[in-house]
């Protein structure tokens, strides 16, 4: 089929060039910055070689943030997958109002993040917020709690908010995967007398797995990079409990005014993510599921 390489180039080049100009070039300049000692934006610096890398790799805050980022990605993956899978399985059933449910579940995803943050900030607050009174009425709490009061609860609350925003989108992607599974398979299994649980583990899950894997990879990259929700909500607090790597980068660049150190952290984070992405997509290609 390799008949028209020029044509293929014409098809692919615009997109590739666009991405190169907007993403690759800035990344290269971030790398260059990481080899210098620039402080504030617009100030100049000297070349310092790998000095920043030596410093950052021994910087406790960096490792704390890296650890938090890891937990953040894992927690989001688990919560979002569970919520999305449950929602997708429900939306895969037939019931009255299905079309409305399928359309409007996406509501949380189409709202600007700033608005999401404001909504939840209000709902979780102890003056006027709805969540505390609701939980007290339901008997879950006996007095108002500060959802952003401790590092742990703030972190968990943020995972909830971020998952709340993203799970419907993932649910629809899963639904897309589910609807590609031929219904004949289920009919056949039913005739063979397979239980609902068996049908799920033997048919649904294996056939959904490729979609899930790709979603998991992209989801991991996207949730690792979540910045706005965390920053607008807690600014990485309290006591650094939600300071993931993107927050640390922003803080280092625009609060401590150490552009070069921020760039170094960014380069390290990028290397980490690239390694993950390359390994993950390679294993995907090997299992032959990539489509």
């Amino acid at each position, binding site marked *: 089929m390799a008949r028209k390489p020029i044509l293929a180039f014409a*098809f692919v080049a615009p997109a590739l060039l666009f991405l190169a100009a907007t993403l690759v070039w800035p990344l290269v300049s971030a790398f260059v910055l990481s080899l210098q000692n620039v402080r504030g934006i617009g100030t100049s610096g000297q070349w310092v070689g790998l000095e920043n890398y030596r410093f950052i790799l021994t910087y406790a805050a960096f490792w704390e943030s890296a650890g938090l980022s890891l937990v953040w990605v894992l927690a989001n993956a688990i919560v979002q997958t569970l919520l999305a899978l449950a929602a997708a399985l429900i939306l895969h059933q037939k019931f009255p109002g299905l079309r409305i449910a399928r359309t409007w579940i996406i509501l949380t995803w189409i709202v600007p993040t700033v608005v999401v943050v404001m909504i939840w900030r209000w709902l979780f607050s102890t003056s006027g917020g709805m969540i505390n009174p609701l939980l007290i009425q339901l008997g879950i709490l006996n007095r108002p709690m500060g959802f952003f009061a401790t590092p742990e609860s703030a972190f968990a609350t943020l995972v909830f908010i971020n998952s709340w925003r993203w799970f419907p989108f993932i649910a*629809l992607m899963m639904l897309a995967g589910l609807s590609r599974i031929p219904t004949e398979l289920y009919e056949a299994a039913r005739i063979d007398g397979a239980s609902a649980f068996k049908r799920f583990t033997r048919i649904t899950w294996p056939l959904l797995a490729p979609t899930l894997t790709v979603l998991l990879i992209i989801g991991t990259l996207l949730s690792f990079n979540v910045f706005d929700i965390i920053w607008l909500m807690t600014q990485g607090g309290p006591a650094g409990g939600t300071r993931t790597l993107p927050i640390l980068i922003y803080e280092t660049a625009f609060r401590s005014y150490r552009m070069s150190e921020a760039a170094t952290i960014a380069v390290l984070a990028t290397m980490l993510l690239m390694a*993950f992405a390359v390994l993950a997509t390679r294993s995907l290609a090997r299992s032959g599921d990539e489509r």
Partner: protein
Amino acid sequence: MRRGRSWNAVLVAGLLFFVALVGLPFWWVVSGSFKIPQEIIARVPTMFPQSFTLEHYQKLLSSSDYGTYLVNSLVVSSLSAFITLLLAIPAGYAFFRLEFKGRETYYRIILLAYAFPSIVVLIPLFGMFAKAGLVDTRTALVIVNVAFALPFAIWMLRSFFASIPKEIEEAARLDGGPPLTVLWRIMIPLTAPGIAAVAIFAFVTSWTEYVFASVMILSDARRTIPVGFSGIIGQYQVDWGLLLAGASLAILPVVIVFAFIGRWFVTGLTEGAVK
């Protein structure tokens, strides 16, 4: 499919859970925006408004350029969606169908575009845009948003193309159509639902983007909804009523849009191509 009674109960419970999870926050926000200030911050909040006022909306509309923000957001998001499609459709098709050296490598590199914290490119991009005279223009926002939406768009489109039965395309090809014609005449119409879904994805990505829009845009007349909204938050006082009204109005346009095209998004995602 038939279901047992217990399954039905689980289904209904699950459905109610999700309705509450997604719906309640929005109900609280929208109903809150009609409450008088005293009721909004009352120690015991009310599930249903006990008061009714339009003062927050009046204040919002009379004193902020909400209409301007809305137009900006619509322009930026629509253009972003359009350009994303323009770049992603040929690329997605080429990655799916055309053979060329390094195809798999390039394809993977494109997905790697999500493998770095986007905050990193903020300052270099600002510098680039400044040199090109694009700071404080909507063009800058379109460029950024396309860059963020493009990789995923290409990935989705490729899988939509892949779901078209081979025979249809082969037949077209045997009729002697060059790839561009095949793409234009056969593939695009067949994947129309999927393309619509990708367009909506790009639109929403752009519609919700905040960080870049807040830094790249300097003047009020070119702000988008998220940035304009954050502007009414205020540093020393929080006027919850105004915020709730602002939130409601920021949600409203996409809700209206989705009322018309939301169906397409779901069918586009699930079916991808007309079979």
